């Protein structure tokens, strides 16, 4: 399993707006996931979810990697990735690959430097390169710079930049749902529980104001026993 650690990103993370009510988008993200991610990454905990059933995801499709495959870094299961990292992290990570001949895969990443994952989106996104090839020689690396000030698109792929952002966004929406599917039930039950409590608070507080206050003004001691 990878050693993920939040905070070692070389660039600031882009904010992504998560909309858990957009079911169509989650399903679309799931389809994208099946196309681009499922060949290496599993979602073991997710297989019994209704959304997984709708997508046709099954345990048999999930890849299983031995511990020593991929030079000891097998692709991790992504069931909880949006919680252990963050949606923002995923959204930025998947879009900040750049050409680096020094890496065995030919690509490096700004958010997760020296990542072992090959760039999965070469044909869609195209190639990104460092704006200044000597950027890292001058010890610039820190987390506040925006990624688009460090790398630029050299060669466009099958999708335009806006389409590609949408594509990745869909996947992030899907993975966020996967990491905690209880979100639907929570949003559904939440208002009822809170409404019930609000009503109950109002009733008991009104009772205290109307009845209890009088008692406090002229307290009665209990009968001796």
């Amino acid at each position, binding site marked *: 399993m990878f050693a993920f650690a*939040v905070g*070692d990103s070389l660039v600031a993370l882009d904010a992504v707006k998560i909309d858990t009510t957009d079911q169509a988008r989650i399903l679309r993200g799931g389809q994208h996931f099946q196309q681009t991610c499922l060949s290496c990454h599993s979602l073991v905990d997710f297989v019994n*979810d209704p959304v997984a059933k709708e997508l046709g995801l099954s345990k048999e499709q999930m890849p299983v990697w031995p511990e020593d495959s991929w030079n000891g870094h097998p692709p991790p299961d992504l069931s909880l990735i949006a919680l252990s990292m963050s949606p923002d992290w995923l959204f930025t990570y998947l879009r900040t690959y750049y050409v680096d001949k020094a890496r065995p895969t030919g690509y490096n990443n700004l958010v997760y430097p020296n990542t072992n994952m090959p760039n999965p989106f070469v044909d869609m996104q195209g190639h990104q390169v460092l704006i200044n090839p000597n950027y890292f020689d001058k010890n610039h690396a820190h987390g506040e710079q925006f990624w688009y000030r460090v790398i630029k698109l050299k060669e466009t792929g099958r999708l335009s930049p806006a389409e590609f952002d949408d594509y990745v966004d869909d996947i992030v929406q899907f993975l966020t749902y996967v990491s905690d*599917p209880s979100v639907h039930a929570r949003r559904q039950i939440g208002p009822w529980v*809170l409404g019930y409590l609000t009503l109950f608070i109002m009733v008991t507080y009104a009772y*205290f104001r109307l009845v209890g206050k009088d008692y406090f003004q002229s307290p009665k001691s209990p009968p001796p*026993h």
Partner: protein
Amino acid sequence: MFISLLITGFAIFVVLNVLPYFKGVGAWIDRRLPIFSFLLDHLSYYPAPKNLNIWYAFGALAMVACAIQFISGIWLVMYYTPTAEQAFSSVQLIMREVPYGWLVRYVHSTGVSLWFVVVYFHIFRGLMYGSYKTPRELLWMSGVVLLFLLMAEAYTGYVLPWGQMSFWASKVIISLFSSIPVVGNDIVVWLQGDYEVSGVTLHRFFAFHVVGFSFLILAMIFLHIIMLHSVGSNNPDGVDIMKHKDRNGWPLDAVPYYPYFVMKYIPIILLYLFVFFVIVFYAPTFFGLFLEAENFERANPLVTPLHIKPSWYLSPYYAILRSIPDKSLGALMMLMSIVLWLFLPWLDLSPVRSMRYRGWMSRTALITVVGSFVLLGYLGLQPAVGWYLVMSRVATLLYFSFFLLIPILSYYDQDYVVPDRIPER
């Protein structure tokens, strides 16, 4: 969960209101099992000072929080598997497959954080109104022991999901025991049940969490309440209400706890539940503070996380540990940061209880110790480098200076005159 709470409430209501009217049956049972007179003694005949304010609700809230943890805990134990291979996935089983498992788990994880919030406010109230002073010294000490037990319970529970932070935090805490001279290393092996933190450790922490500390906590809460009810509640003015009683021996400044304060505190308890469920339904991880991001990754003994940090409620003590360069001394000071509170009743020499009638010196001391504690809590979650380290050293110094200075400050402070009776407002 709601249903069990409602049933409990209804049962208490029935016992208090209906059964005493069945004179024959009620009296027959009561002679053999004094349950009704016990409840009457501790609710209807418990003289509560009439000026108890909202700060006094935190004691009742702590009981509610405790009940929530016990009830939700029972359901979690039904599905949780305490082995290194299964623990992490059994938590996911609870979250995804068990009907309403997510609710029970989020209630349990939110519950512990809010329990600490409530307990810290409860302790602050005790400090503010001098509830530790004579005759409540043992009551205060049992409270300090309870805090310690609660921390042990929370820590052993934190290990159970077997995520990265569970594993590494338990490693850090267990290694502290190795700084005990002579027997330290043996204690570490005994605690771990192994030469490393492993599945065996997880299994015994499960035992400590579910049976060990939880029952000690119950027993200690029982003692805490027995002690409270034998010496009586303090009040915001720190006036001794037992001095002035009517013919029947009822304190003039007291009202029966039931129904007066029950009536007053029920909306507050419901408000607590409201906040509770806002978090459960809309922010269960509470921005990574109640459920840390790192802990959603399975425990991996080969990969150390970048920053090992404790849960927020233990971070002040962790900040003290890190601010002292020597590990053994750090562990000792961490222990002392709680143990020293045991002696507070004898360190505080002021004849006055409540801060309402204390001079500026005592007030400054209180603000300093509370302020430094909060600051340490923040710093414990940050990496111990640069200014963070300097600040945590200053805060540690301020925190411990309280125990050195409070005898002097409280002795020389210019206190105000405490009234004989609770003043009318």
